[in-house]
């Protein structure tokens, strides 16, 4: 008898690893991808991985993308696993996004906003026509693109930072005043979600959620399984200075900057408690990297979840458990993949139940016919 159940595990795993590496290098090119190429020219891909990996390290994200041949789920997963080996050194204070060095900043709530609208780098109004001249790009022309952009853009054309649109709405009383929370922010890397969870836990979970998963949930709300009806008060993308306390003096100092996308949506007002003035309601989204669809989805879901936390969920996107336990890419892809592992013991058990049930049915049938 030749069959031995799943033997030779080690050889199989080693073989799979070399087959994968073979596919990475077998193409027509001699040159491997450089990390700089991935980080710079596939910047949105890198953005997605730093965001879903929950670790701001674009160069490691580029490495992960190279290693996993462009699979964003796997790449984000590798960043998370790398992070598991590192202790948490300190808790950062609240960072003020008004200090963001914006590369793009828009509001759809107003024709014009204090500080101005800056479309910046976006494909929003680009015609999605394949640009065939990119197929064989001339390196000299490629270099010239950046040079001519910088030559044509006057220095100091963009202000260092912009006021926040929602601040003016607040000043007018259209939004409720900020009530500073005394509770420390919930750290999802150190505490499990035990429901009900505070809003900070929901925001942190969504900030590193898988983009597609988050979008699907938010889209269900936009389409009709919910009624947020958001207006984008402000969407900004830019470099946020990270302020950390000096190890000796304790004074806040700039430790570096991170690329962040931030979105605030305003939704219709709800009945206020007692004799409070009714106001618009707010949804907030923010994540590492340049990920606008993710930030908007997160803001809409934040609004939906706040409503669900207050009134009880009326649809899936308002249910904190439903949303927060199903949007993580590492969790969901891991579990979907695990079905590829051997399950023959449990299947044996399943067959046992089915055969017994079938036998009983057959017995009953034959008893009925005799």
């Amino acid at each position, binding site marked *: 008898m030749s*069959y031995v159940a799943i033997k030779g595990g080690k050889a199989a795993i080693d073989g799979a690893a070399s087959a994968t590496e073979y596919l990475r290098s077998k193409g027509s090119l001699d040159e491997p991808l450089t990390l700089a190429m991935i980080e710079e020219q596939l910047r949105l891909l890198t953005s997605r991985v730093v965001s879903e990996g929950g670790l701001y390290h674009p160069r490691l994200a580029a490495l992960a993308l190279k290693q996993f041949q462009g699979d964003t789920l796997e790449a984000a997963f590798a960043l998370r696993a790398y992070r598991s*080996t590192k202790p948490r050194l300190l808790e950062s204070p609240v960072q003020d996004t008004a200090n963001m060095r914006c590369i793009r900043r828009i509001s759809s709530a107003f024709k014009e906003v204090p500080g101005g609208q800056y479309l910046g780098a976006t494909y929003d109004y680009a015609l999605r026509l394949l640009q065939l001249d990119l197929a064989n790009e001339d390196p000299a022309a490629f270099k010239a693109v950046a040079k001519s952009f910088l030559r044509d853009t006057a220095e100091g054309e963009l202000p260092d930072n912009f006021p926040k649109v929602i601040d003016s709405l607040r000043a007018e009383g259209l939004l409720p005043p900020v009530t500073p929370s005394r509770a420390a922010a919930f750290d999802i890397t150190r505490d499990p979600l035990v429901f009900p969870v505070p809003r900070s836990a929901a925001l942190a979970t969504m900030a590193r959620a898988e983009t597609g998963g988050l979008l699907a949930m938010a889209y269900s709300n936009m389409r009709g399984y919910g009624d947020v009806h958001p207006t984008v008060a402000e969407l900004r993308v830019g470099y946020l200075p990270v302020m950390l306390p000096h190890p000796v003096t304790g004074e806040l100092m700039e430790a570096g900057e991170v690329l962040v996308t931030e979105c605030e949506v305003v939704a219709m007002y709800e009945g206020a408690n007692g004799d409070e003035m009714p106001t618009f309601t707010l949804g907030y989204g923010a994540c590492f990297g340049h990920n606008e669809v993710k930030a908007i989805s997160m803001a809409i879901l934040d609004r939906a979840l706040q409503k669900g936390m207050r009134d009880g969920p009326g649809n899936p996107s308002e249910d904190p458990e439903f949303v927060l*336990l199903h949007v993580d890419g590492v969790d969901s892809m891991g579990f979907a993949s*695990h079905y590829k592992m*051997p399950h023959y*013991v449990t299947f044996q058990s399943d067959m046992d*139940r089915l055969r017994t*049930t079938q036998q009983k049915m057959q017995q009953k049938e034959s008893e009925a016919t005799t």
Partner: protein
Amino acid sequence: MNAHYELPLEDAGYSFGFLDEYAKKEVRRCILKAISIPGYQTPYASREMPMGRGFGTGGLQLTLSLVGSNDTLKVIDQGSDDSVNAVNLRQFVQMTCPGVDVTEKTEEATLIQSRHRIPEKPLTEAQILVLQVPYPDALVVVEASEARRKTMHGEADYSRLLVKLYEDIVKFDEITISHRYPTRIHGHYIIDPSPIPRWDVPKLHQSKALILLGAGREKKIYAVPPYTHAEPLAFEDVVFSVEDFRDASGNRRICSRCGASDSFLDEFSDEAGEKIYQCSDSAYCDERLARQKTSDQKTNTEVAA
């Protein structure tokens, strides 16, 4: 930005047990809580491991938090030491925990990590069994919301689970739960004992070894402490039953390799389409084979003499 960028990875030599010490400490504290409240699902933060969620990251975090250089580890999947996932997990522990011995022999191990099986050989007080868990909550089949399930567990309200079993009997004349059989621990909490077959459920009862269950994705740790009651859910008139390995004429099938008639059998077809039955516990099967060989040799020498 320079094209050749040095990554800060000189320190990529990972610390003993891969996880940072704070993470391991947290897991150990949760283990103590889980042992103190038998069957209670203790929430913990659960770190991302470098293998997929669902591949045993919960069990692995337990193992890595417990293992020391004086331990001997056995890793099995589907009962086999050589299944791909078992090999992968064992290699990872060997890579990140230098000095830890590994074994395939159940009796040699101080720590056993397993997916879907409990070894056939009875465990001892000196051993810890770590089971990998995909679904930690037995109530999930009747209640989707975790918040509501938590209340039901607190009140030991398992009526809907009993109704599910009752409906099974009405519909099929059988309890149809094949594996992950709901089991009451120490008279209160009902656990999902991980996807072990019903064959293994009685081994939980009054086990000499500590049994720890880890769900990485669902972020829960729970325990069946040594010498604790573990009762599979059933009725007085419809009792719990394990998998039936009898053939059409009512004879117990035996392992085609070692001849065992007291082990959980894997069923598969050979090239000719014939059904073959073999021990799922590969170490148990190997040991029986080895013993037969030595006794054969003995008989041969006796004959020769």
